[in-house]
């Protein structure tokens, strides 16, 4: 499975036709086709291309919702 650095992940921000990937708890998910991630933005507060693990604590849903999306890689810790 592909491994992403944070810099590589940042390229998948969903803007200008780019794919939208997000990371959570080490996994990288492809949310490009989600209605709720249009243009790489989610519910005003979140953007694609970043690790959202910390933000999930404040979100009104758990990590289980991410299981609806395909995992396209793993996020490197450094």
């Amino acid at each position, binding site marked *: 499975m592909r491994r992403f650095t944070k810099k590589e992940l940042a390229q998948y921000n969903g803007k200008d036709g780019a794919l939208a990937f997000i990371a959570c708890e080490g996994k990288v998910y492809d949310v490009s086709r989600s*209605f*709720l991630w*249009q243009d790489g933005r989610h519910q005003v*507060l979140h953007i694609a291309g970043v690790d959202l693990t910390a933000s999930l604590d*404040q*979100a*009104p849903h758990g990590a289980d919702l991410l299981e609806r999306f395909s995992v396209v890689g793993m996020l490197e810790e450094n």
Partner: protein
Amino acid sequence: MAKVTREMVERAGVDVDQLLELLVKNAAAELTTYYYYTILRVNLIDLEGEGVKEIAEVARIEDRNHFEALVPRIYELGGELPQDMKKFHDMSACPPAYLPEDLTDVKAILTVLVEAERCAVRGYTQICNMTAGKDHRTYDLALAILNEEIEHESWFSEFLGEGPSGHFMRRGETSPFVSKFLK
């Protein structure tokens, strides 16, 4: 716009532009849900579907009421609705509640309905969290809507066999929590 109203909310630490975008997106979700629920409701037929039709109708009317209740708050805070209805639809806080392919599959229709309600419950929980103790009027409104969305979710969930809703469906007027914002 109510200038002092907006100022009070800003001074309490709320990012009002961010809040307004969320309110507009949720207003879009309510109006589009009202539209899609109309189609879902008319397709709830036969022995199985007829039993669900009444709660789908109540949820449909109450979602329209939520849209009506949200609009004044959006303008009070200095926001506005988009001119273009297509843009409004596409910026919704929840995905379109499309009719499933198999029109005879009542469980599939119920799944669409419960998913829409769950999206709404998440959305208003987020707005309540953002405004609690800071923007009292938006909080009061979002909490009233949240109360009704939770009931809708529990009704549909009960029909899906996920457990009892714990209460009866509406008797009498719709929107027992939101009606005070519609007077």
